[in-house]
């Protein structure tokens, strides 16, 4: 038996079959949800009971005094039945809510964890907005399935069945005469709500269009003003606004037609039933009490049907959400702990690439036959244009991707023997414009650090990364929030926060992108010093953009179209004909040009 809060590996238990999947999804709550249905049955029984008691009361107390007990009993009976109905309804809704919320919580947690464990290649090809959309809207559709639709459909069917059986008990022909309109009402409501759903989607679409128009206007306010285009903008907004009005009108017209039309059908059915029933009562086929019970019961088998159509349509739309979520869930996770070499060893940092090739799943090759070696503590500069494979090459080190052919050795062991988790603890990455989280600067610096760190250590690291003074200049210092709700850091500042983080992490291998966004010369020098310090005693891979860091590197790899075209130290490469010498010569030429330029002016 699975308990409510138990973790379930949804990937293992879910399947493409929707209802089976939805059933498995509520493991631990299945009993509870069935309970909710049983409460609905009890509630419906109590409702029928009320009318049957009414029948008894009318026939045996009011029309003839045949009952041998006080009217009090009847009165209390009514109150109790009513209460019972209220309590069971409440219990049913509560159980359904607990199931819906509990199941959704588990689903949310699972998705969250699943997504952060999915592979790099999955994330590379998946649109962020779409993924977020699925995790929010589609999950909510699942929640509504449990909280409203399944239980709601169950309730209406139960109400229908229980009350219909009660009607049959009262009088069979009368009962049969009372459900003539059922298929018609059901058909109309399904037909209408399909249309309503479409109209609603169209309305929502236009809502998004209008929001975009508004947002573009607000964020482009300088352009609007610069061209004095206010009248034009007002016209544009008016057009979109009016379209939304029109679509809203269409949606509402459907509603305003559906309710009265179905009212007429339901009303006609009631009228017909009343006529038949009243005639039966007059001719003595049924008692007056029976007629009254009938009049009360029949309402409950007809009117709820209008909502049945609505719920069926909504549910069928909701089920599509299951398919979309299942697609994410069935993706394979990246096994973080798989590998024989884990925390008990200390990495030195000797790295050998031997005949490494890499291609994506679709077969497109990014790296071809890459071979080089470097000793612990060396700096390797990677040079190449966009798409030359530099980034992919460094992504192989933390095993974001695994090599397709050949092997990478770290300290004489194949990289694939190391667990990913361990490996990533040993490697630090500083990107050109790193992603920061909307938390405090302090939390961003200590993000992902396993050991306890003190405020002093954090400040020390920030000082080494030349960001300490910047942080102190904010009113809330290290507690300053980053992002929309706090300060917006420049690219250079973000990079230095990442450098500070890497100082604390103290990895053996370092991957860094040394290009800095436009900063003034002084800050530039600070960053260079920080980076230089960080590189001490670590094997460093630099995606190089500036001559300085290239010149100091122990090994320079010039990449083109996934291949190494030149390899060596600065001195060695200067001796060779080739790309590298060309680049370097340009630097000297620039200085000559500048001097010439200046002398021309003076």
């Amino acid at each position, binding site marked *: 038996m699975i308990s409510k809060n138990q973790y379930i590996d949804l990937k293992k238990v879910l399947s493409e079959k929707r209802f089976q999947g939805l059933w498995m999804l509520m493991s631990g709550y299945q009993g509870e949800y069935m309970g909710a249905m049983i409460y609905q049955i009890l509630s419906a029984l109590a409702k029928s009971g009320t009318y049957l008691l009414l029948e008894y009361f009318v026939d045996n107390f009011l029309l003839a005094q045949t009952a041998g007990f006080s009217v009090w009993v009847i009165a209390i009976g009514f109150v109790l039945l009513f209460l019972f109905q209220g309590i069971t309804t409440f219990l049913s809704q509560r159980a359904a809510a607990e199931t819906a919320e509990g199941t959704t919580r588990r689903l949310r947690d699972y998705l969250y964890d699943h997504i952060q464990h999915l592979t790099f290649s999955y994330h590379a090809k998946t649109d962020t907005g779409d993924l977020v959309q699925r995790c929010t809207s589609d999950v909510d559709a699942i929640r509504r399935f449990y909280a409203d639709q399944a239980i709601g459909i169950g309730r209406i069917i139960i109400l229908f069945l229980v009350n219909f059986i009660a009607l049959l008990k009262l009088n069979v022909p009368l009962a049969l005469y009372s459900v003539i309109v059922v298929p018609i009402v059901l058909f109309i409501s399904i037909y209408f709500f399909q249309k309503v759903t479409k109209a609603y989607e169209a309305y929502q679409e236009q809502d998004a269009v209008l929001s975009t128009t508004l947002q573009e206007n607000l964020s482009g306010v300088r352009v609007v003003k610069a061209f004095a285009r206010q009248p034009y903008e007002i016209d544009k907004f008016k057009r979109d606004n009016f379209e*939304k009005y029109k679509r809203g009108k269409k949606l509402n017209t459907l509603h305003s037609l559906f309710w009265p039309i179905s009212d007429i059908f339901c009303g006609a059915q009631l009228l017909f039933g009343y006529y038949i029933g009243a005639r039966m009562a007059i001719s003595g086929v049924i008692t007056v009490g029976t007629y009254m019970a009938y009049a009360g019961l029949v309402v409950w088998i007809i009117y709820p049907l209008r909502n049945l159509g609505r719920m069926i349509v909504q549910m069928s739309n909701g089920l599509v959400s299951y398919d979309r979520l299942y697609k994410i869930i069935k993706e394979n996770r990246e096994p973080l702990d798989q590998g024989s070499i884990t925390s008990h060893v200390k990495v030195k940092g000797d790295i050998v690439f031997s005949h490494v090739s890499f291609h994506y799943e679709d077969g497109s090759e990014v790296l071809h036959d890459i071979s080089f070696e470097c000793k612990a503590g060396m700096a390797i500069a990677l040079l190449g244009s966009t798409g030359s494979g530099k980034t992919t090459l460094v992504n192989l080190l933390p095993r974001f991707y695994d090599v397709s052919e050949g092997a990478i050795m770290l300290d004489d062991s194949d990289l694939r023997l190391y667990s990913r988790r361990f490996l990533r603890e040993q490697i630090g990455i500083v990107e050109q414009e790193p992603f920061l989280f909307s938390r405090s600067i302090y939390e961003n610096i200590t993000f992902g650090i396993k050991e306890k760190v003190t405020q002093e250590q954090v400040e020390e690291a920030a000082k080494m990364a030349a960001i300490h003074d910047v942080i102190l200049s904010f009113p809330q210092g290290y507690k300053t929030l980053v992002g929309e709700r706090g300060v917006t850091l420049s690219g250079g500042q973000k990079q230095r926060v990442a450098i500070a983080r890497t100082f604390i992490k103290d990895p053996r291998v370092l991957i860094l992108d040394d290009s800095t966004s436009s900063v003034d010369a002084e800050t530039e020098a600070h960053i260079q010093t920080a980076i230089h310090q960080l590189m001490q005693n670590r094997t460093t891979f630099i995606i190089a953009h500036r001559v300085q860091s290239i010149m100091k590197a122990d090994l320079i790899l010039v990449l083109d179209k996934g291949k190494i075209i030149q390899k060596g130290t600065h001195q060695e490469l200067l001796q060779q004909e080739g790309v590298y010498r060309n680049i370097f010569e340009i630097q000297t030429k620039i200085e000559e040009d500048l001097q010439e330029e200046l002398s021309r002016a003076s």
Partner: protein
Amino acid sequence: MPVNTFEETDYSREGATGKIFLRIFSFMKPYWGLMFIFLVAVILTSVMDAYITYMTKRIIDEGILSGNISILLNILYQYGALVIFEAGTVFTFVYVVSIVGEKVRYDLRQKLFNHLQSLSLSYYNQTPVGWIMSRVTNDTERVAELVTWGILDSTWGVVNIATSMYFMFKINTRLAFIVLSILPLLLYVGIKFQTRILRQYRIVRKINSQITASYNENITGVRVIKALGREKENLKEFSDLTGEMYTSSYRAAWISALFLPTVQLISSLALGGVIWYSGAQVTIGGISIGGMQAFLAYITSMMWPIQDLARVIAEMQRAIASAERIFTLIDTSPDVKDKPEAYDPGSMRGDIEFEKVSFWYEDNSPVIKELSFKVKQGETIALVGSTGGGKTTIVNLICRFFEPKRGRILFDGKDYTDFSLSSIQSRIGVVLQTPHLFSGSIRENIAYGRLNAAEQDIEAAAQLTGAHDFIVKMDHGYDEQVGEGGVLLSVGQKQLISLARAVLSNPEIFIMDEATSSVDTLTEATIQRGIESIMENRTTFIIAHRLSTIKNADRILVIENGQISEMGTHKELIQKQGKYYDLYTQQFRQEQEKKYTLFAE
């Protein structure tokens, strides 16, 4: 303005409620006729609803118990007529209320948008876009909801309760008094419940948006999370959040579920009373059987109008707070606006002069200090200097996005605040560093500069600015969609399009704020001549990025700390070996490096 000013409060300031109500209703003025029809339809429906229940009594008492089929048929005919008539009134009020609702939404949105167009840049600098958007989308929704469905539900509720009470009194006075006495209790409980439910759902929504934000961050930052191996802690934090979500939404759900049983409990006591009373009375003729049936029906259906009324009352406070925010926005008056006697001089040609101009965004931190300079008609002025020195503010002042706090800006010898805003802004062409495009095609975006421009003019502008080449290479050429805010294009491409847009507007004064900073070197060279032809005979300000443009300027102003630190031609300033000299050499190296590097990123 501090950020927390924009936190939403759901409660309006005290005392203002009545006035706000009046103002809301003044918005409804155009729809009073429709509202009247709607109210009549609601009242009719509500009365008929109560009467139909009364009819079920008549079927029993006058039809069945008396055994008279012709009376029975007569009642049933009436019943049928009522059903059809009621269908008509239901259609009328649902239709009218939705139309009025959509129309009021439309009006409010349009009114806000129109007003927003007149507000100054200072307002936009202080107010987050999201905050404004929420006024236009959410608040209008809430107010419209109040004046339509709110009125509907409360009218229907009140009339339904009143007519039900009327028929109950008609059937039996004493019993009706019992029901009447529990009404206030029902309403009180109803309002308490609804207020509580609303508050709980508000908490749910808040946590929900935190969950969305978490997903967003986790997915966007997945590379960093993997690199730092923080999966476990992340999940723990997220799980705390979903735990909170579970608790509060479960709570919201069961409080909602408790509402009806509670109301039922209260009314079941009344129900028991009715049964007991009728058991005693029927024999002595106090209440008829049909009457008792009707009573039961009235009591059991009483909870629906109660629920509706309570909900409207509970939601009202929020809607009023929304209305208040809407009105605050509408009442905001722009800082920069036309003087009453402002006029259009017909041309902005002529000299431009800054006369001891000072400007600050925040008190005590002036951005421009006593700045004075004069530009002759047709001159090209380059503004250089480090970031934050005040160059962009000077542009903002010339465009009159802001006005000087002290001093004057003269166009052809006259204070420019004497002119109308549109006369100035329609004659200045500005190209901004961060180009902003609107969703739509490239053609539409260029034509933004001149709305009625002919096809060949658009292409000519694009050719002049070097945009034509990349445009024709696209699948749909000039019809290529640029995406929201221009996301489908590179920054360089966007800059070229916004340059073409400005050229097409054929301005008298031309301003380029680092207009081509992201354009690649090759394109830059090809558009150089185009730009020069544009600058000819026009007064031009360039905040330049490229040395070539600066060098050819008639005059260079070096702006430092809101003041002019150096002024002169390229040659003069190089010889001076001051700030400009440093900037120039630094820039030269960077530019050349970029030009020669084979691996330009």
